[in-house]
């Protein structure tokens, strides 16, 4: 397997640094509009359609007015989406609020993000996945995405308002050891299967769910495959087909 060309690595590194500098995660507990627009100002200048961004700001204002203290943090990526974060205790009330007050009647999807860095991450140099190293997990601090976070598991759902033409992504931190939240079925019946999937894949329990059994996996399956500490066995015994064996295009110098 060939080495990555030096210049490409440099370019990728530069791109990454640029992106990191332009998008600081907002960790402050009570977000203000100013911080949000500041973090995204570099992009907003270039974007051709400004009014959708204003719409998101306006919706966020309505949400923060309606939810009050329950809204922990929020994030607007201009023309791309609106993220809010609430506590898992307020999970169902938030959904109720969004459906009733913001006309978000379309239930899009629900899932979980495991923010723990994978202990089985593949290094660029190695052929196989490196083995589980407990200390490596602790070495790497958890970095959360938009709206920040506090715990390893974050519940995320997207609901859409057809009349307003905007989707809202709602996140909620879940307890590390006993991840559980209220089921959304009374608000959105369609959450049923999504919650079953989230339970089997991440081990998140949804209280008041009528039928929380596995949806894909056999009933006696052990473990929760989409958790980051669940090993992907084939990756550990076989060399991983290449990221770096990039061949030069015809007529192009390598």
């Amino acid at each position, binding site marked *: 397997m060939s080495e990555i060309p030096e210049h490409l690595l440099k370019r990728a590194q530069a791109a990454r640094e640029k992106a990191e500098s332009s998008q600081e995660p907002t960790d402050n507990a009570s977000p203000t509009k100013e911080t949000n627009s500041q973090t995204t100002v570099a992009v907003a200048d270039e974007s051709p359609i400004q009014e959708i961004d204003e719409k998101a700001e306006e919706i966020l204002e309505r949400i923060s007015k309606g939810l009050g203290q329950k809204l922990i943090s929020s994030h607007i990526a201009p023309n791309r989406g609106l993220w809010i974060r609430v506590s898992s205790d307020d999970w169902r009330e938030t959904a109720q609020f969004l459906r009733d007050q913001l006309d978000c009647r379309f239930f899009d999807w629900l899932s979980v993000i495991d923010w723990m860095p994978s202990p089985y991450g593949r290094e660029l140099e190695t052929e196989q996945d490196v083995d589980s190293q407990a200390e490596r997990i602790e070495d790497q601090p958890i970095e959360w995405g938009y709206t920040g976070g506090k715990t390893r598991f974050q519940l995320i759902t997207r609901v859409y308002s057809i009349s307003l033409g905007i989707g809202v992504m709602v996140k909620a931190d879940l307890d590390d050891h006993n991840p559980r939240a209220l089921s959304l079925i009374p608000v959105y019946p369609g959450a049923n299967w999504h919650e079953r999937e989230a339970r089997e894949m991440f081990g998140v329990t949804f209280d008041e769910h009528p039928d929380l059994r596995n949806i894909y996996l056999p009933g006696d399956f052990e473990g929760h495959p989409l958790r980051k500490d669940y090993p992907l066995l084939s990756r550990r015994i076989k060399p991983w087909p290449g*990221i770096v064996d*990039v061949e030069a295009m015809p007529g192009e110098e390598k």
Partner: protein
Amino acid sequence: MSMTSESDQLAYIASQAADARVNVEVETDEGMTLNLGPQHPATHGTLRIIAKLDGEKVVAAEPIMGYMHRGYEKLTEVRTYPQVTTLVNRIDWLGSFANEVPFILAAEQLMEVEAPPRAQWIRTILFELSRIANVCLFLGDMAVQIGATTPVFYAFRDREFVLNQIERVTGGRFHPNFDRIGGLKDDLPKGWIEETRGALNRMTDFCDEMEELVLGNEIFQARTRGIGTIPSDVALAYGLSGANLRASGIDWDIRRDANVGLVYDQVDWKVWTHPDGDSFARFWVRLQETREACNIIDQLLGTIPSGPIMAKVPRIIKVPPGEAYVATENPLGEMGFYVVSKGDLTPFRVKIRSASFSNMSIAPWVLKDVFVPDIISILASLYFILGDIDR
């Protein structure tokens, strides 16, 4: 893996009990349990439906899936961004190119790259071609599920022309894997535009044929009208999307209302809706959409701009940290990718929002107090692809 907490154990026991409940057929005095699938001709794939019957009336029906679960969400975490398209190609295998687009668009959003106009045009054309290739089969298959064997042959015959056009550009009939971050792999071959016009004419004729042969048939109407009616509120709450939602009277199309990265705003076209919400409405809307797709492609073919097909992107793609959700109006409905990046070569987490999963989640609701034949016609009209449910 050991049980970490009491709740885990309880959930595990509950799941065991529930699975046993499903797997062992319970015969009671009230009726009979009918197990449709996983090997059943009408489930085209490996869906399993357990129906409790009273005579031929369905008291309750429950879909069981997972026979084709391939764990794409986990696999994406060990693939580089360009490699992921190979996986997501196989989600909805009838309209494969359409699966790649939302993922590529999500990655482009995170990288703040925009494909050049020509690439966007060709993407939209291929996207709509795969919609035709997909829905065309539905039009024939729905008739087959209702008992008319002939239309499906016409569907396969005319779909071939569309597949040929896709193959001529991408080199692949089923899994093109043609979309790249920042553009497309190749440009259009010579003479392709004219050939595509010919294929579109075939498709328009095919739609007329289906309208006469299937839609206008009294028996077809008797079998589908008023069957499996889904009111708009229920459809929204269950997350139905695509033609299923529009057949319930909701005038919402991602191509028009939340378009990202494709050039639908350059075309004069119409979103078709039907107020009834029954199986017939779903067939009708899909038929009109196939026609509309021909119309869209026809307009786009005439206005393809010249220029490069690839934006400047680094050879080794590292996507800056961030989160993005991009959904497109795929043949089956809304397909979206929620991509979480931590600045690596691989996505940190990809949530695949596939249309059929949500479309099928309404099945237990809608399959009540219908007859056994209606199970088949309703499922066929909801139109699922197993790979799109199980991912």
